[in-house]
């Protein structure tokens, strides 16, 4: 088992963003997340050796962008869907 600890500044990345990123690696290993003094520590155990720390950090950056995109477009997505299904009897 390959072990490592990766840390993130909670002022920069949300816990949700980090969880979403880690979920994508659940086929590769297991994770133990702890938060203390604004530092999010992830203890990782991987099944096979690789440069997992870099890969996880890159995925966290992607998830952070996804979070921005999602938050900013939630209302407009609802508007588009309401428009798409107007006059279908599916929505009031």
């Amino acid at each position, binding site marked *: 088992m390959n072990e490592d600890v990766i840390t993130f500044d909670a002022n920069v990345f949300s816990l949700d963003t980090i969880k979403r990123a880690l*979920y*994508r690696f*659940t086929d590769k290993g297991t994770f133990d997340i702890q938060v203390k003094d604004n530092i999010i520590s992830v203890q990782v155990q991987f099944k096979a050796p690789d440069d997992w720390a870099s890969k996880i950090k890159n995925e966290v950056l*992607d998830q952070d962008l996804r979070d921005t*995109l999602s938050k900013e*477009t939630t209302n407009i*997505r609802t508007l*588009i869907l309401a*428009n798409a*299904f107007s006059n279908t009897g599916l929505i009031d």
Partner: protein
Amino acid sequence: MSLLGKRFKLIEDFDQSTEGSYELLPARFAVLDDSRYILSNDVGEFLVISRTQLSDYIKKKVSRHSDFYFDLKSKSFLIDADSNVAIDLLALKYRTKAQQISRFTALHLFVVTLRCDYTCQYCQVSRQTDDKNAYDMSEETANKALDLVFKSPSPAIKIEFQGGEPLLNFKLIQYIVATAKEINLVHHKDLQFVITTNLSLLNDEVLAFCIEHNICLSTSLDGPENLHNANRPRPKQNGYQLTVDGIKKAQLVLGNDKIGALMTTTEKSLPNVKSIIDTYLENNLNCIFLRPLSPYGFAVKTKQAYKYDVDRWFEFYKEGLDYVLEINKQGFKFVELYTELIINKLFSPFSTGYVDLQSPSGAGISAIVYNYDGDVYASDEARMLAEMEDTKFRLGNVHTDSYEDIILSDVLLDTLEASLSESIPMCTDCGFLPYCGTDPIYHYATQGDVVGNKALSGFCSKNMKIFRHVISLLEDDPEARKILLSWVRT
């Protein structure tokens, strides 16, 4: 100022947008390869971009004078003060894509018998018996099932006869076709029939019946003789010969477009993709569907489904697609059907109707199965699972349950709710979502959960690999792009 400029204002004069003032529209992204991402939206428009471009787009740093800005705007990834027409366009395209859901179940599978003259290792359902009463559908059951068929609001109804070997119960097929046509005199639906058969019982009577009722045939052809006979053993080891003879006969009598073939990939198939495709070409078939083995029924019991993994299957698919493209480059149109589905999802606003690549899943609402004993299943895979004594996806029985009981059953509604990709972890923000689906029955069969963890999912892994490969071909190989775009249905 040019002469043109004196008479007409410049483009910039009409541009009301200002730097950094655009608004993001809903989008998702996924890694394509080491240096590129695919950015897509709910209706399937996409762009292949770099990490820097992705970051600039989301942080609203894209220069409004750049080509990238106009690409984003024309594909409805942003709106600005100049135009917000994208919102109406996206709504219209979304509605077009979703239209199929309102039409409801179009494909109705009738399992007219479980009896079969083959002994395929991976087959989930067949029975070797002469006892017609035990595994044949009765007229009474067929009548009840037909009542349900015509309750579907779909304007087009396709009845597909499955088995076992359905021609072992040809009399019931004749009865169902005649009865369905009679009922349809009232309903006026676009009614079509397909018989899925190994062709060993194809004779002049069957062919004449197919001509009379415009019935299509679908058969199984796994590749060259040794491979086909190894995958699909028949007591006399003459399955291949009977199949290719049947294909020729059907092509001659019914026409080339009335007979199609499907193949199943077993471990023995993996090193032989070119000779499998050659067999299709030799038999005047103009397409092939490179399918992996499903993890259901006897395929699991005999451990056939686990003998190769997704990576090995993907190599098989990739080699096959390369070969198919090579054939096309030589001037012969030959299509790989799974790739064709994806190409159509990438470039057409219309739904492909392919059950496995839909959100919500097509189980029950795009296709429904009436088993020989009257049991109703959400899909053929659900029926296969039931053969392993797991009836989780049994929706009811035609003798005891009404259409409303079946379609509004908790089993179906819970399954559909769990199959909305938009709300599934990992799918929800995946750039491939508009082209993908989530197969709840596959995930139940492999992970014991209809949603499943997509990081562990062979379905997800297989489809991501295929999407990345097909999109990379479109981006990097102009000749392949031209061929693939010719597969878009218009």
